């Protein structure tokens, strides 16, 4: 499939410091949901803003649908951006906010308002047309921002931490809605987040970034099952990263047990913490050499042979569950 968005050796420098984005290359397939993931300062937002055209590219090229857009203004690229905390125009009603892009393109008032109303219905806010942003809840503002970005029918929608301002309950709800919209519209979404759970839930392709470089770009399942580096394994969570005699390995915590299976690897030590989490119990074990590892045990299994902090314990796993990592990353 021809990629929708392609980055070729894209670099961003601010002043004379180290590059914020350091020569990244990436191809995002058409119609996919892509999440840019990483800790703050990793360059994910700069990358998004360069794709949007709100940040100049220091080196490299950006291609959209095979067209080099590196020097084009945002509106000429076929992208649209949904800003962090939405950036709705405070002096315009919800409907006018949505119609803004059409107004700028010279669409007549009646037509643009009619089409804005359609999009307002698409995001299920039909009744809020005449409200000002200040009169809308956070979730409603977000839907308006979404509709405003979509009305110009972009080929690529860029979302800058769209869910970070919402409470956890709304976040899950909006997540589903974003995914639904993306599926229905069939366009590419590029979504910047620092939450791995969000990326897992949404993306067809997740791009984990670290210090301006791409650490791993792959479908989320592949990332979870085969993290490319210790950084990726730690960042996406659910993994023990261990230095063992055979080298460095990542072992999923839910595949780790308290009793070493026959022929499996193990780590002996003392129980440092026991945390009850409902369906599972988390047991942290500290080895004499200082390494810690944890096991996420189904509650039945734990209660069959409970341990308490301070007791000696040995963690173990099947050899095939230990995913080898390169020693230097």
């Amino acid at each position, binding site marked *: 499939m021809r990629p929708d968005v392609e980055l070729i050796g894209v670099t961003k420098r601010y002043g004379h410091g180290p590059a914020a984005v350091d020569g990244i290359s990436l191809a995002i397939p058409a119609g996919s949901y892509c999440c840019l993931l990483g800790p703050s300062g990793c360059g994910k937002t700069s990358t998004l803003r360069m794709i949007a055209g709100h940040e100049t590219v220091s080196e490299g090229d950006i291609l959209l649908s095979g067209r080099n857009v590196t020097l084009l203004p945002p509106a000429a690229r076929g992208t649209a951006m949904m800003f962090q905390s939405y950036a709705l125009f*405070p002096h315009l009603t919800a409907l006018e906010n949505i119609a803004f892009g059409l107004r700028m393109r010279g669409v007549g008032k009646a037509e643009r308002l009619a089409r804005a109303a359609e999009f307002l219905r698409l995001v299920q806010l039909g009744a809020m047309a005449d409200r000002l942003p200040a009169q809308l809840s956070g979730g409603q503002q977000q839907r308006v921002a979404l509709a*405003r*970005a979509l009305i110009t029918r972009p080929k690529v929608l860029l979302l800058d931490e769209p869910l970070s301002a919402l409470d956890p309950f709304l976040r899950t709800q909006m997540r589903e809605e974003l995914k639904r919209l993306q599926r229905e519209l069939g366009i590419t979404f590029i979504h910047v987040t620092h939450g791995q759970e969000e990326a897992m839930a949404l993306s067809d392709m997740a791009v984990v970034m670290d210090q301006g470089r791409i650490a791993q770009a792959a479908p989320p399942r592949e990332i979870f099952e085969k993290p490319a580096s210790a950084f990726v394994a730690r960042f996406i969570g659910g993994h023990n990263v261990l230095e063992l005699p055979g080298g460095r390995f990542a072992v999923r915590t839910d595949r780790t047990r308290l009793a070493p299976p026959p022929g499996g690897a193990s780590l002996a030590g003392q129980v440092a913490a026991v945390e009850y989490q409902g369906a599972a119990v988390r047991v942290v074990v500290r080895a004499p050499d200082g390494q810690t590892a944890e096991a996420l045990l189904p509650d039945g299994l734990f209660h069959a042979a409970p341990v308490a902090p301070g007791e000696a314990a040995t963690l173990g796993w099947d050899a095939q569950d230990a995913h080898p990592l390169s020693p230097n990353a």
Partner: protein
Amino acid sequence: MSRWFPWLQAAPLALVLACFLLVPIGLIVVVSFYDYDSFSLIPDFVLTNYREVFASPVTWQTYLKTVWFAGLTWLVTLALGFWLAYYLAFVVQDATWRMVLFVLCTVPFWTSNLIRMIAWVPFLGRNGILNNALVGAGVIEQPLEFLLFSDFAVILAFVHLYTLFMVVPIFNTMMRIDRRLLEAARDAGAGFWQTLWCVILPLCKPGIGIGSIFVVVLVMGDFATVRLMSGGQSASVGLMISNQIGLMQYPAAAANAVVLLAMVLLLVAAMLRVIDIRKEL
């Protein structure tokens, strides 16, 4: 007790306002109905003073002229002030530079009003620097007479004085505009002028409103600038009142002051109807 507490807290300010604002204005209103002769006030209730204000074509003319001065000054200071504020808020990125330029804007206030206005004479006069330069450069053959002691000079001095009053509040509102809004506009396809007209200008309205109130009120009440810059050839309501006070015609001056006050209040009310400045407070 607690019920009275808010009233108690508000009392000092209310008292000060009552003593130093309401009572004097009340006195002016009272005096405006007094009669007078050439050397004394005669407590009375006569409408002569108001009749003289409204019946005289001169007062009408003077009021019109004052409004005209205020309107023209408003237009020019708005145009100038908006772009100066725009430059300071959006073009200058460095905070230190912004501060330096801002201080430059206050230069007109570094000298006294009178000295500043007298200083215009050697600059704009018949044999002033500007005329000499223009004649010297061959642009004009005869010195331009309209530069000084004219309505042009009055407006120039007003603009010179009051543009800052426009710049500050507009700059203030501009600095509060979330820069992402400008990106959002650009993202939606807005060009420079579209962003200006559809986003920046509407969001600057409170600042424009406050600046406009400043400028209009100051110009409407002015008497020194009009007198000095027009060479005494133009009249303003303030000047008329000042003349009347000078000649001890207090009731006439009071009547004019009441009419002027009413007019300025109406103007301000009209501006407040158009622009909600509470957002700014």
